[in-house]
């Protein structure tokens, strides 16, 4: 993958967090989930990303808590290793090399030092058959240990997570595959197989999908494709086993999970409803509906207080005590396809693309976090297979990000196409887009391209459609209504040809529309056809105007392996080159253009300027398959790289989606250095969940403490302590009625403390004192000197009932003494 030392292709965010079931730690504070090649740790209370466990070189396929140490976690990966981690500090403790790609991992408390792995059967190269093996993890001090003693437990198991489960106290393990349930008893070293009929009847799909064993009783719950749940009992013999059936789901049961006490069974499927069955009264069930997308995994925290459900839209929902959704961890949603292309929101610089069905997602590339979902279709989504749903197929932002245009489409079998064009205005108050205009059936056929005019004076939208027309939409100003709406301004066509693409020049003065083989150039001001350009054969697939110094060029990519560049001043072909360009992208901040070409099953990238014959950068065999979507994302800060090869990455970054929906980007050395530096800077105390509040105050508090530690060196402390204690002794032993007034004493006391500290510290203290003076009266000013007393103060204040001013003042005086005395005692 790495060909050039300076430019590297890297995965940037967007990994699947719903691939395997997550793990909630014993104290319910963290949630661990497999995410691509690492394990991510999230805080359950704040849904913030805490850190990740990096080290695997292949896809992580399973995460389980170490049953003998609840602060450690095992993870297995397709790279053939099992790794043991300390997840609180993100330290890799041990690596066990198994040697086979691992598909899932199971552990049990009863089997200490043994992990059960699903690996492909050694003698079958086809990798169709899998077996469950037990691996004794050797005890040794080394970091890397080879553990190659595998003992097969069950043959022919399913590689899916959730297809095997440990029974009551680890006495048996049950696995399902196809129409078969197999239970292996460790004591008897014997396995029983139970199989169901294939169900010749129409609609009866008996195949097993998932399994869960009751933790306290001999009961196995299995989920089936037809939506039934079977509860197996009495299965320690071949003949007299029984099962009862529960049925609520109408689609396949994706996942099952017993709560730790076994009182409840949770199930989930495509309906995106979490069903909560009561174990003893099975006709009683609770529902948690509308969780957003099909449930793929359910996990329960060891104390049973938190549930987490993974969803097919790359989301983990944390549910508190079965009724309330308390947190949602959302990754980059990768739906069935990206129809909208990748777009950059000019306002938030977020990547915008299809999200959940009927939604647009705004994804922050810098923070690798979904910012928000914009509901475009605004219809109740029916979670059922085989329905034709509305999909967002096109989206476009205007130059300033004030307007968003979306096109949604629903094609019914044998019926008319339903198209809606929606225009959304950005609302400063709510910081989101608000629906302004809905145009039903803007065109009679599919819309092929949609762009806003980049000129700052007019907000104009152009749509091209397969019905042979392109339409210009303008914001109609209405004096009596306070906000305008959009209306069609112009309908154009060319010889009834079907327009496939369109593009505005950088200043919005020219519009080019590609009508199959002909490129037409229009003036949006007068809607005059200025000129036509053509280079047959081959229909135009992509059109781009040059920018900045190259604005006189128009580039077009045609289907017949041609990339043409026309000079708009002479209206003639400047150059053309045989290239099978699948995607043409312009950098909005420079003259550069990127062309992705597909050649013999893989994609090449060329970055060039239209005016120069030589590409600035080229990379052969970027990835397998065609690159369909790419975008230049502007950088926050410009990179200062002088190397010629990397200069094109200075202003913006190129992101692209491969065929397998991996989000990739190019990174340079200078950028990585900078990232490394910033990550060091951002290092926070991992043991505390990162909340916005903590980020604001915690850092400040930490620095304060650090400074104090640095300044109050042992010498000063020692000199201070005796003094303090003497003064306090004096104070405590003198009867209260003979003491001078407290305010007098206070000043004295403070002065006595001041002697020991250096002048530099005094200044600091003074500043801090000022900051906290907002809360405390001038008499309490002596307080902040001692870190502890300042920290203790507030709770007492809150706890106290309403007092008069005078009483309060007295209390505060007492407090100052109290704390100083206590703290000095503690220090002694």
């Amino acid at each position, binding site marked *: 993958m790495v060909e050039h030392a300076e430019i590297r292709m890297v995965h940037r965010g967007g990994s699947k967090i719903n691939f395997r079931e997550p793990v909630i730690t014993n104290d319910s504070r963290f949630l661990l989930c497999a995410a691509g090649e690492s394990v991510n740790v999230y805080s359950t209370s704040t849904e913030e990303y805490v850190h990740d466990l990096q080290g695997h070189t292949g896809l992580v396929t399973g995460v389980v808590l170490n049953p003998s140490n609840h602060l450690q976690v095992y993870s297995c990966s397709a790279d053939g290793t099992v790794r043991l981690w300390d997840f609180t500090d993100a330290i890799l403790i041990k690596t066990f090399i198994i040697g086979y790609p691992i598909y899932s991992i199971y552990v049990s408390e009863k089997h200490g030092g043994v992990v059960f792995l699903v690996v492909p059967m050694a003698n079958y190269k086809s990798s169709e058959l899998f077996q469950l093996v037990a691996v004794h993890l050797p005890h040794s001090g080394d970091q890397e240990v080879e553990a190659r003693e595998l003992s097969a437990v069950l043959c022919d198991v399913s590689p899916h997570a959730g297809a095997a489960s440990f029974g009551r106290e680890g006495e048996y393990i049950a696995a399902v595959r196809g129409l078969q349930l197999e239970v292996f008893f460790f004591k008897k070293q014997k396995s029983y197989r139970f199989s169901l009929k294939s169900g010749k009847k129409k609609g009866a799909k008996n195949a097993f999908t998932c399994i869960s064993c009751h933790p306290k009783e001999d009961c196995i719950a299995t989920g089936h494709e037809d939506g039934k749940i079977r509860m197996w009992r009495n299965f320690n013999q071949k003949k007299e086993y029984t099962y009862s059936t529960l049925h609520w789901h109408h689609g396949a049961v994706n996942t099952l999970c017993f709560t730790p006490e076994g009182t409840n069974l949770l199930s989930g499927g495509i309906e995106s409803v979490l069903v909560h069955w009561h174990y003893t009264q099975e006709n009683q069930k609770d529902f948690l509906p*509308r969780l957003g997308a099909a449930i793929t995994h359910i996990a329960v925290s060891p104390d049973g207080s938190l549930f987490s459900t993974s969803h097919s839209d790359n989301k983990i929902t944390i549910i508190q005590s079965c009724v309330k959704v308390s947190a949602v961890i959302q990754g980059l949603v990768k739906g069935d396809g990206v129809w909208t292309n990748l777009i950059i929101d000019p306002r938030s610089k977020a990547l915008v693309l299809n999200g959940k069905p009927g939604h647009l997602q705004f994804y922050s590339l810098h923070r690798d976090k979904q910012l928000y979902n914009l*509901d475009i279709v605004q219809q*109740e989504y029916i979670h059922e297979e085989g329905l034709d749903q509305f999909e967002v197929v096109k989206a476009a932002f205007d130059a300033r990000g004030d307007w968003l245009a979306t096109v949604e489409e629903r094609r019914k079998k044998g019926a008319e196409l339903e198209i809606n064009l929606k225009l959304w205005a950005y609302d400063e108050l709510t910081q989101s887009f608000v629906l302004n205009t809905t145009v039903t059936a803007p065109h009679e056929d599919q819309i092929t391209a949609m762009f806003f005019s980049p000129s700052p004076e007019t907000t104009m939208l152009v749509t091209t459609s397969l019905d042979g027309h392109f339409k210009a939409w303008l914001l109609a100003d209405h004096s009596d209504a306070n906000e305008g709406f959009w209306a069609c301004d112009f309908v154009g066509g060319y010889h009834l040809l079907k327009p496939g693409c369109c593009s505005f020049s950088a200043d919005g003065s020219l519009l080019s529309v590609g009508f199959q083989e002909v490129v037409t150039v229009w003036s949006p001001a007068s809607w005059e056809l200025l*000129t036509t*350009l053509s280079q047959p054969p081959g229909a135009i697939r992509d059109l781009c105007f040059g920018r900045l110094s190259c604005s006189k060029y128009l580039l077009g990519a045609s289907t017949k392996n041609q990339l043409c560049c026309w000079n708009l001043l002479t209206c003639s072909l400047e150059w053309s080159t045989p290239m099978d360009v699948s995607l043409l992208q312009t950098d909005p901040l420079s003259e550069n253009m990127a062309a992705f070409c597909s050649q013999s099953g893989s994609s090449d990238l060329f970055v060039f300027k239209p005016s120069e014959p030589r590409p600035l950068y080229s990379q052969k065999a970027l990835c397998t398959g065609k690159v369909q979507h790419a975008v230049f994302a502007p950088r926050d800060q410009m990179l200062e790289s002088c190397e010629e090869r990397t200069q094109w990455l200075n202003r913006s970054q190129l992101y692209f989606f491969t065929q397998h929906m991996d989000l990739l980007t190019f990174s340079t050395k200078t950028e990585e250095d900078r990232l490394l530096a910033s990550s060091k800077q951002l290092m926070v105390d991992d043991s505390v969940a990162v909340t916005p509040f903590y980020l604001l105050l915690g850092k400040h508090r930490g620095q304060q403490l650090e400074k104090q530690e640095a300044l109050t060196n042992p010498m000063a402390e020692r000199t201070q302590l005796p003094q303090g204690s003497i003064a306090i002794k004096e104070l405590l032993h003198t009867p209260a009625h003979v003491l001078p007034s407290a305010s007098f004493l206070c000043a004295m006391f403070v002065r006595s403390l001041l002697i020991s500290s250096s002048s530099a510290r005094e200044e600091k203290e003074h500043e801090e004192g000022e900051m906290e003076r907002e809360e405390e009266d001038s008499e309490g000013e002596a307080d902040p000197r001692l870190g502890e007393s300042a920290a203790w103060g507030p709770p007492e204040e809150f706890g106290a009932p309403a007092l008069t001013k005078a009483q309060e003042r007295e209390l505060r005086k007492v407090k100052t003494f109290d704390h100083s005395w206590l703290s000095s005692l503690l220090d002694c």
Partner: protein
Amino acid sequence: MASFKSTKIPIYPKLGEKVTPDTLYWKNYKAPVQIKEFGAVTSIDFSSLAPHNYAVTASTRIHIYGPFSTEPVKTFTRFKDTAYSGKFRSDGQLLVAGCEDSMVRLFDVSGKVALRVFKGHTKGVHVTDFTSDCYHILTGSDDYTCRLWDIPNSTELTSYKEHTDYIRCGITSKLNRDIFITGSYDHTLRVFDARVEKSVMTMDHSQPVESVLLYPSEGLLVSAGGRYVKVWDLLKGGQPLVSLKNHHKTVTCLSLSSNGQRLLSASLDRHVKIYNTTNYKVVHNFDYAASILSLALAPDDESIVVGMTNGVLSIKHRKSPEEKREMAGKQRMQPVYRIFVKGRNYVPKKDDFLVSKPVKSHLAKYDKQLKKFNISKALDTALESWRRNRKPEITVAVMKELDRRGTLKNALAGRDEQNLSQLLNFLIGNVVDPRFTPVLVTATEMILDIYQAVVGQSSVVDRQLVRLQELVEREVDYQQDLLEVLGMLDTLFAASLPRKEVPCPGSSRPNGLAEGSLGAPGPQLKAA
């Protein structure tokens, strides 16, 4: 956990007028009171005195009505022939009227017999008016003359014989006792000054003038004649300002609203149009049953009185605010106010900690059923008679939603005769509505599929099916005709569009496009 998203009811653009403050104002009148007079009502005049009685001239009588009476409070019948132009003096004490027998009679409003009779005209007198000093009377007659009379000694003061045709309208200035304006069938408007022998200003309306009106400031003059209403600037020497052509028959009467912001014109085409006097756009329109001859507005626009050729006097009274409230109250039973505002008007104190309660969203009945996946019930709810008749878009939206869920067929199936005939009725009413056709055609097809087995078992359903078939066949014919017309129009447009050459700069390098194809007709342009 997201909440249930309710079914989207598309908003269709409302056909007809837009709601503006003007329409609201002018629609705020009760249903008209109609009084039958003896003949065509030629003139209506409001008294400026407090109860604002009005004099209605029709045939040989003048009736005086009170503001809310349907019976005349007073009648003057001493006319030998058709009476014209019964007018009150500004103090409301005297009334003057012309007559076809060329005599002008002056009445005391409380009396019966004419106080004075002015003789001198040789033909019928259609125009009478008091001057602003209340001592003189202006008359205009079919003998082409207009005269000024002195009331106390009933003598003719002056006579102007400048018009060359019947004088059918005239008005005196309210600010100057000597100035008056007459309009005649000789197409001219003349401004006279009693101190001068001749007319001081002449304007050409180019149609026989039926009515004149002065603005309260008397800077602008409005005249109506033929289909035109024209506005003249008197201060600029009678320069025409605007010419309005909004009626399709002769405009017979003009009036100003009480605040002078709106101008009303009545016409033989049975319409009263209301114009904005700043931009002279029509802001509202009233329809009447017959051609209108006279129109008057009560002070403060309290009522609009219109007289028609068939002798019907139509009076519209403004709705009083109490009545309006009553109407609103009738529509919905409201909960007791005290219960309604309970706890809502509590103003949080300074130190109160506010806990916001999630607002419970209200779902419509059919949405509640949809939420529970009760599809047949949802369709039943949407087919409830008032919803079906008043808001068919809701029924159609629910059908569309069911179709989207793939359950429309199940929801339509299993209905008895009554239910089915209800459904078919709805389809017959709405299937050809272009807004609903795409959804309802699928629904109709499904119904035919489902119920084809029971055709012939119920006469009601069979009759409806036949009606539906006829309807669809007729609609198909219409559509075909329309497409034919569209094709003809396209040909006409294409022929009228000038041929446009696509500019092709001379280039030595190949442009790719052959020269021949450049000469082809220009792009197909169609304005939206």
